């Protein structure tokens, strides 16, 4: 496809929904003037799964497992956000120990997600050995997951009113030991991201997202923090975050490099939060059952590895929810992505698209049907 404007021949080419370096089914149509990107048109809707409708049809207690399957990587946080929504609708108070356990496991999920991303990102810029090194040490986190919940990815420990599994002293000491091992193995890799000249060359000064525009377009997570705005939902103090000491990590250079470094540093931050929480965690019950049925409306915002995730639930006193609206962090990051891409070269597409950590399967909430085409 090509079109003629003002003597310059513009070419339109599709990127995705299936592409060797893009693991997610999104299509971006690039309008290019030779090598330069002039315009980008996004197209989603390839993997719509009707999750929100399934949630309305299913019993609200069983929905935790559906929500966990919205996103494989953030599965624990989806389960947590959903249970928090139901807890708000039923006025359930979560025991303190359960809050701490949720915090620890949420950070474990963030660790594995960021490591997954760092590996994929390294691969997208052609650094394959680094990808393998990172995924090798990510196994430590996955083993901890399996040791905790019995599964490498799906912990499935969230219950309405608390958590379904406790950690004994033995497991806590394993956590400390494995975290130290992880940090020891991760140090040289983090060092490489901070210092490697080739890596800097490929990521610095591309995909610039100015602070003002990031704010205006409503970017979330590492994308907005890479533009220097300290926005982090964990600072609102849900679960045990209010009692832990941490600060949002920001970088000011507004480019792909900044967004990568935010994630590199957040892995350390997650380890630190986990250590703090493991030390401070009080003894006590882990589950608080409540006989009430969900009624009213509730809003929950949690910070996922990709940014703010938003749950909105309406209950009507029955076993079904009337409505459950979920906004996953990739959705608000798509408009900033379109802004980032314009003006750069075709060769920069991979690192820029990867820099928002797209997770399209969890983003799909709508299907767009063009009546004329159908």
């Amino acid at each position: 496809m090509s079109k003629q404007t003002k003597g310059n021949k513009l070419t339109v080419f599709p990127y995705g929904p299936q592409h060797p370096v893009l693991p997610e089914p999104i299509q971006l149509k690039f309008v290019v003037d030779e090598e330069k990107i002039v315009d980008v048109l996004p197209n989603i809707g390839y993997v719509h799964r009707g999750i929100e409708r399934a949630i309305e049809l299913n019993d609200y207690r069983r929905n935790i497992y559906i929500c966990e399957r919205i996103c494989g990587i953030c599965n624990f946080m989806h389960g947590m956000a959903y249970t928090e929504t139901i807890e708000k609708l039923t006025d359930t108070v979560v025991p303190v120990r359960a809050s701490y356990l949720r915090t620890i496991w949420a950070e474990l999920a963030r660790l594995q997600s960021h490591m997954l991303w760092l590996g994929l990102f390294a691969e997208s810029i052609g650094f394959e050995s680094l990808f393998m090194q990172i995924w090798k040490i990510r196994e430590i986190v996955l083993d901890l997951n399996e040791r905790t919940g019995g599964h490498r990815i799906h912990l499935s420990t969230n219950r309405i009113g608390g958590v379904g599994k406790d950690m004994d002293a033995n497991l806590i000491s394993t956590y400390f030991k494995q975290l130290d091992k992880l940090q020891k193995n991760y140090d040289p890799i983090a060092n490489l991201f901070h210092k490697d000249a080739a890596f800097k060359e490929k990521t610095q000064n591309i995909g610039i997202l100015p602070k003002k525009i990031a704010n205006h377009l409503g970017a979330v997570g590492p994308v907005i923090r890479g533009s220097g705005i300290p926005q982090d939902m964990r600072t609102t103090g849900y679960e045990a975050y209010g009692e832990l000491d941490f600060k949002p990590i920001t970088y000011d250079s507004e480019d792909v490099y900044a967004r990568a470094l935010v994630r590199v540093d957040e892995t350390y931050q997650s380890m630190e939060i986990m250590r703090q929480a493991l030390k401070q965690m009080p003894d006590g019950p882990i589950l608080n059952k409540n006989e009430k049925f969900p009624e009213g409306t509730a809003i929950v915002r949690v910070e996922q590895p990709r940014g703010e995730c938003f749950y909105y639930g309406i209950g009507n006193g029955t076993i079904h929810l009337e409505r459950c609206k979920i906004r996953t962090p990739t959705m608000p990051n798509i408009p900033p992505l379109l802004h980032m891409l314009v003006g750069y070269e075709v060769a920069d597409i991979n690192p820029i698209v990867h820099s928002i950590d797209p997770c399209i399967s969890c983003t799909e909430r709508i299907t767009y049907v063009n009546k004329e085409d159908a």
Partner: protein
Amino acid sequence: MPKLLGTIIRNLFSKPATVNYPFEASPLVEGTRGSISFNMDRCDQCQDCERVCPSAAIKVYPDDKKIEWDQFKCIYCHLCVETCMHKAITALDHVQSPDYKKSVTVFES
């Protein structure tokens, strides 16, 4: 370069990080959520497991004293194991092997 040489020599003589699957079994981690099995001598057909199962993989027939479990629907969450009052559901530490045909497993007393 000297740094690189060290890495090269180390990698030449170190063991691979991966497991030679399927010739070697991957190591089992304690507490893995594997397959499940029903002990029908303990079961009193209360249907609690059927009620809690998020993927509707269990069907209890109280009159026939029979349970059908669909291994293809099961998501191995072990909620049924937790719920069963009579401890009639055993959690196994191995995963269900794949099958050519979709079928349900029937447990009868």
